[in-house]
């Protein structure tokens, strides 16, 4: 309950000098030249506005409500109950602040895991979250570097994804083969094309589940822009088939089961999946042309999943 130091302070003997004016006063004030933001803000607006303020509370103030209720219960003799269930102090919940995410967590660890999974190493073009800085670099290079595809025609540009390997390949397929053969990756590893998942649910309300990743990508420059882009887009769930075309907003109805949704970006070049996604020749749906990608994310792989940005509905509120 009470900490020992407090107990000691309060039960100190009379010999101890308890007077406040006997306590040495720390020096007041800031160093000259200290940039105190609320007065010296260079862009003219005071961004930090807190000022110490004494607060006078009148009798009807809402802060006084619980105490008043307790008093009147006592006056009416209803407070002497052994198990008086008054409101107890709650620990604050934690919330992810990434716009559009809004998930709430009861412990810091849960929140940090969420953040590290979904919001770290985020590609600023397509808002995918990659597991590491290196993979982010590769992703950016392979998907958002217009020079890359030009160079790839003449050189081996596709790096092996295994750190330390250093091999490079001319095509994505070659890289994939290399990783399967040499590095013993499973053939269904999420290289470029992912398997179709059978059960696809769409949660209109709950966007993200803890620790899982989302197959969502929207590009966000400003929240307002995103809002406009997405306002007529259906929401997305974690595992789904996504047909992406290079033209934004075009869906591919025949190939979608009814309960999948799609999102397209407003970027012409950005695919909406992870680094390793690419259309492969042996894909299951030959009707797609080279620019149409069909991507799914296996449930067990948290790799190269997109994070959520922009206005996509609301998470659980506190």
């Amino acid at each position: 309950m009470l900490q020992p130091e407090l107990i000691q302070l309060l039960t100190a003997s009379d010999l101890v000098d308890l007077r406040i004016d006997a306590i040495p006063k720390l020096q007041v004030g800031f160093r000259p030249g200290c940039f105190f933001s609320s007065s010296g803000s260079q862009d003219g607006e005071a961004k930090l506005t807190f000022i110490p303020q004494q607060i006078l509370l009148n009798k009807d103030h809402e802060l006084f409500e619980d105490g008043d209720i307790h008093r009147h219960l006592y006056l009416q003799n209803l407070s002497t109950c052994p198990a008086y269930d008054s409101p107890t102090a709650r620990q604050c919940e934690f919330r992810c602040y990434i716009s559009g995410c809004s998930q709430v967590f009861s412990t810091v660890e849960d929140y940090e895991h969420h953040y590290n999974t979904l919001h770290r190493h985020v590609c600023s073009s397509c808002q995918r979250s990659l597991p590491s800085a290196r993979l982010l670099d590769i992703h950016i290079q392979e998907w958002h570097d217009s020079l890359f595809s030009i160079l790839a025609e003449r050189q081996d540009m596709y790096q092996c994804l295994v750190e330390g390997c250093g091999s490079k390949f001319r095509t994505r397929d070659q890289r994939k083969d290399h990783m399967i053969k040499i590095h013993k990756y499973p053939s269904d590893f999420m290289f470029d094309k992912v398997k179709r998942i059978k059960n696809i649910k769409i949660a209109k309300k709950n966007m993200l589940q803890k620790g899982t990743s989302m197959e969502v990508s929207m590009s966000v420059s400003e929240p307002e822009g995103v809002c406009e882009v997405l306002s007529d887009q259906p929401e997305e769930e974690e595992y789904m088939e996504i047909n992406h075309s290079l033209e934004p907003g075009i869906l591919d109805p025949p190939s979608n089961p009814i309960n999948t949704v799609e999102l397209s970006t407003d970027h012409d070049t950005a695919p909406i999946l992870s680094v390793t996604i690419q259309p492969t020749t042996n894909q299951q749906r030959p009707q797609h042309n080279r620019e149409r990608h069909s991507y799914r994310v296996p449930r067990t792989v948290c790799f190269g999943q997109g994070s959520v940005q922009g206005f996509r509905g609301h998470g659980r509120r506190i």
Partner: protein
Amino acid sequence: MWRLNAVRHKAGRQGSDLEEFKFKRREHEKELRRARKDSQLVSKRLLLNDDEEEDGTMDTLASDQVVELFNMVRHGRDLVKKEADLRALRKALRSPSAHLILIKQPNSIAILVTNLCGPNPQCRLEAARCLHELSHSPHSEVDSLRLRQATPYLITFLSGQSPKFTELCLYTLGNMCPDSENVRDMLLAQGIIPALNNCIQIHRTNLAVVEAVGFTLSQLISANYVTGTIIPAVLASGLIPRLLSVLTPDSQFGLGPVIECAWCLHYLACSNVDNGALVAQGTLLHCTSLLVTLGVAVAKGSIEEGIELLIWPLLRCVGNLLLSGPLGALQPQLNDSRLLAALCAFPQAFLQTHPALARESIWVLNNLTAAADSSVFCSALFYLNLVPALIQLLPFSHGINIMVLRVLGNIAHQGREYCLHLAQAGLLPALCATLKMADTEVVTFSLEVLGQLMASDPQLAEEFVRQSGLPMLEAIQYSNQETIRLRATHLLEHHLPPHCTVDTSASQ
């Protein structure tokens, strides 16, 4: 001696089942909250009489029986018989339905008043009890207006010597006070305040009467629209020193009277009519001394049941009185450093049972640390090593962490030394946690405090980065809440050392 059980409300404990009782109490609590929102929060008290201690059954008389009783009282000449009739009438009035029957009788109140002033002491007592029952009536027809004939007599009797009788008169008047402004004006004009002053002086050793005076006064001054005449009259009356003399933690005297007097002082202070006068009469000194005593008791673990009912009004009184003048001028009354320790001890002790009390305790600390000359108190908080105790309250909602952040912000505003000491006490890692919280207001305040810390000394900015605080600020930049987005951006742009990168891909 704790009088908590002696004074009962009619609702009482009729349901024998504990669950039923708790359910009723929860419903009741909801009603009270609704009433408070409408500024209609009013309570009345009913004294139980000695021969009714085992109350459980109420003999509800038929209406003609009530009428008959009353007629006997009205016409009776034999005083002994009249006394018996009055007693029977009083018992009948335990049942609310009898109230309506009685007041329909012509001159019913006048007859009671006649007996109230009559020669026979027992008749007086029983008549007073009848009026008391009526003052507590749930029926709106039985209001103070109807009972107004009795008030001048009731007030006069407050200066009398009989404790039991005086107590009855007090509670009757106390029940009438909240009814309307007219009633209060009438009571004021009839001299209730000097009468209360006399009463508490005469009966100062009788805890029941002192409690009743406190209750009646609190009813008078806690009603709405009293600041015009009533509170100035109380302040000028000489009642304050008498109330203060009750604030002694004498366990023999019981908590009941102290509680009532403390609530009176709270209502006086929060009305802000003339808090300077309150302070001049020693209110701040007495309240802080008692808070220290209670803090010591809490530290020793000897928390009596109901002690929070006393701590609450004292905290409120002190909190509001701190604004009555420059803090430097008030300092002689605040010179016991254990007050700060007590203000940190109450939240720890009452966090789970009464979080609102924890919050109000920190509010008092805010008022101590937010004034222009608060540096002595801020220094004292460090000297006594109380800041870690405050930091530990940061995880808690219910407004507690916001108030703590205010206090920490107040301290940080004092200067660079204070910021460094705050960091030494472990504030930076704690802020890293509060920046992640769901409540936007908490994050806003955290950013403010953080900004102040980092602005005061670049070491602190570097320390913040070492504590991995940077990703948090970056994350907040993506929030859809503008207030925190702007502040986070501001901190990143202006207060972090230039070598810190913003690029997440290059981070740890």
